C-alpha cells in the first residue's frame, strides 16, 4: 500500500471512528438516563421517539439553541479553550484502540483500528491524562468559587488515581511483553484446559482488574468518585459557569472517556475481541467486533449500575483510599506478578 492510499484509508477510518464514538456517546447518555430511571422506579425518557430513542438528538439540538453566555468575570481565552481541549483529548484517545482482527477489503488489508503503533498503551494513557487540563483550566478560568473548588478537587483526584491506574497495568504488560494493544490481545488467545479463556483476568490479574476499574471511575469523575461535580455542595463543580454547547462538551468528554476506559478494560483484562467463532465467513469476520462491543457495553452498564447504587465518598476518604489502599495494592500486585513470571521464564 502506498502513502496516498494509506492516508485515504486512515481518513475514512477516522471519520467512521469519530461518528461511531459520538453516536455511542449520545446513546450512553440515553442508556444512563433510562437505566438510572428504572433503578429508581421511574421510566426515564419516553416522549421523544420510541422508548425515548430520539432523546439524544433532541438534547443536542436544544443545547445548540441555548443562550451561549460568556460572563465578564472569566478569563476568556482559557474559558473557551477548556471545553474544546476536553473534547479533543477525549475523542483522540480512541485512535489506537483496536476493535477487531485485521480485515481485507478488496486488495486493501487494514487492521480494525485507526493505527497500530508499538507504544499503543502509552499513547492512550498519555492522551487521557491530558484530559485533566480541560477540567483544571475550566475551573480556574471561570473565576467562580464553586468552579475553582471543583477544578482543584478534580485535578487532585485525577492525578492521584492516575498512579494506581498506571501501576495496575504493569502486571498486564509483564504478561504480554508489549505495549501494542493488538499484541496484548493476541497474547490472551486460547484457553486453559480447553474451557477457561486465557484472559488476563484469569491469569492472576484479577486484583489489577479491580484496581484499574476503581481508579478509572475516579479518573472519569464518576460516582462514587464524582466529588468535583458534587451537586449538593458545589452546584456543578468546574462547569458551573458554562452554558449551552460548552456545557454539553464536558459531558461529551466525560462519556467519551468512559467509553475509552471500557474499551481498555476489555482489551487489557477480558481478552479484547476473543470469543467463540462460528457460521459462514462473513459472520466469522463480524463476530469479533460483536464480542468486543458486548464487553464494552457491559462495562458501560456497570458504570451506570454503580451510579444508581453507590453513595459518594467524602474527600478525605477519597484521597486516603487512593493513596493508602489502591497504590500499595497495585505495587504488591506488580511485584507478585513479576516474581511469578521471573521464576517461570
Amino acid at each position, binding site marked *: 500500500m502506498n502513502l496516498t492510499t494509506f492516508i485515504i484509508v486512515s481518513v475514512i477510518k477516522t471519520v467512521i471512528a469519530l461518528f461511531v464514538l459520538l453516536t455511542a456517546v449520545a446513546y450512553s447518555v440515553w442508556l444512563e438516563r433510562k437505566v438510572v430511571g428504572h433503578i429508581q422506579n421511574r421510566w426515564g425518557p419516553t416522549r421523544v421517539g420510541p422508548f425515548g430513542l430520539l432523546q439524544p438528538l433532541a438534547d443536542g439540538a436544544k443545547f445548540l439553541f441555548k443562550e451561549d453566555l460568556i460572563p465578564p468575570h472569566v478569563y476568556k481565552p482559557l474559558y473557551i479553550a477548556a471545553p474544546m481541549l476536553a473534547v479533543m483529548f477525549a475523542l483522540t484517545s480512541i485512535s489506537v484502540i483496536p476493535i477487531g482482527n485485521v480485515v481485507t477489503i478488496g486488495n486493501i488489508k487494514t487492521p480494525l483500528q485507526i*493505527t497500530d503503533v508499538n507504544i499503543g498503551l502509552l499513547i492512550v494513557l498519555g492522551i487521557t491524562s491530558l484530559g485533566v487540563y480541560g477540567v483544571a483550566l475550566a475551573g480556574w478560568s471561570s473565576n467562580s468559587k464553586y468552579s475553582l473548588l471543583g477544578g482543584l478537587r478534580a485535578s487532585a483526584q485525577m*492525578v492521584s488515581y492516575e498512579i494506581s491506574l498506571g501501576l495496575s497495568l504493569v502486571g498486564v504488560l*509483564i504478561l504480554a511483553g508489549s505495549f501494542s494493544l493488538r499484541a496484548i490481545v493476541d497474547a490472551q488467545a486460547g484457553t486453559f484446559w480447553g474451557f477457561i479463556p486465557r484472559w488476563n483476568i484469569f491469569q492472576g490479574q484479577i486484583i489489577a482488574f479491580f484496581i484499574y476499574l476503581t481508579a478509572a471511575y475516579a479518573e472519569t469523575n464518576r460516582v462514587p468518585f464524582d466529588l468535583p461535580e458534587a451537586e449538593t455542595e458545589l452546584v456543578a463543580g468546574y462547569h458551573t459557569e458554562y452554558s449551552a454547547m460548552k456545557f454539553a*462538551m464536558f459531558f461529551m468528554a466525560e462519556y467519551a472517556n468512559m467509553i475509552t476506559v471500557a474499551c481498555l478494560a476489555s482489551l487489557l483484562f477480558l481478552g479484547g475481541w476473543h470469543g467463540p467463532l462460528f457460521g459462514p465467513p462473513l459472520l466469522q469476520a463480524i463476530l469479533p467486533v460483536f464480542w468486543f462491543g458486548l464487553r464494552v457495553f457491559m462495562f458501560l452498564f456497570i458504570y451506570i449500575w454503580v451510579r444508581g447504587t453507590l453513595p459518594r465518598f467524602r474527600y478525605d476518604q477519597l484521597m486516603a483510599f487512593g*493513596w493508602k489502599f489502591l497504590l500499595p495494592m497495585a505495587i504488591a500486585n*506488580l511485584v507478585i506478578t513479576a516474581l511469578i513470571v521471573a521464576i517461570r521464564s
Partner: protein
Amino acid sequence: MPDNYFARYLPILIHFSLAALLATAIVLLSWIIGYRRPTRAKLSPYECGMTPVGDARQRFSVKFYLVAMLFILFDVEAVFLYPWAVILRDLKMFGFWEMLVYIGIVLVGFFYIWKKGVLDWGGASTGRGEV
C-alpha cells in the same frame, strides 16, 4: 501500511486534527446559532442566589500542591516500571531483584510521606506529624 516508521503515527495526527476541527466547529456553531440576551444577574458568578463577595482569585489549600508534587514523583516511578515490565521475560530473576531494590527505595519515601501525614486530608485525626 508504508514501511516508514513515522507513517504509523500519521493517523493519530489526522485523528487529532479532525477532533480539534470538530470541537472548534461545535463551539462556533453554538456561538452563531445560540441567542444572547445578557442581564446583570445572568452575568454574575453563580453563588446560589447570594451576592458574590470578591472573586475566586484567592488562596487555596497547600494540600493540592503537595498532591501535585507527589504525583510527579510517583508517576515518574511508574514510567520507569513500564519498559522494565515489557522485557522482564528476558531479564529473568536478575531483572526482578534489580527492580525490587528500586521499588524498595520508592516505598521508603512512600512510608515517610505517609507517616508525615501528607496523605491525610483535614479533620481532627491528623494531629501528629502535620506538614
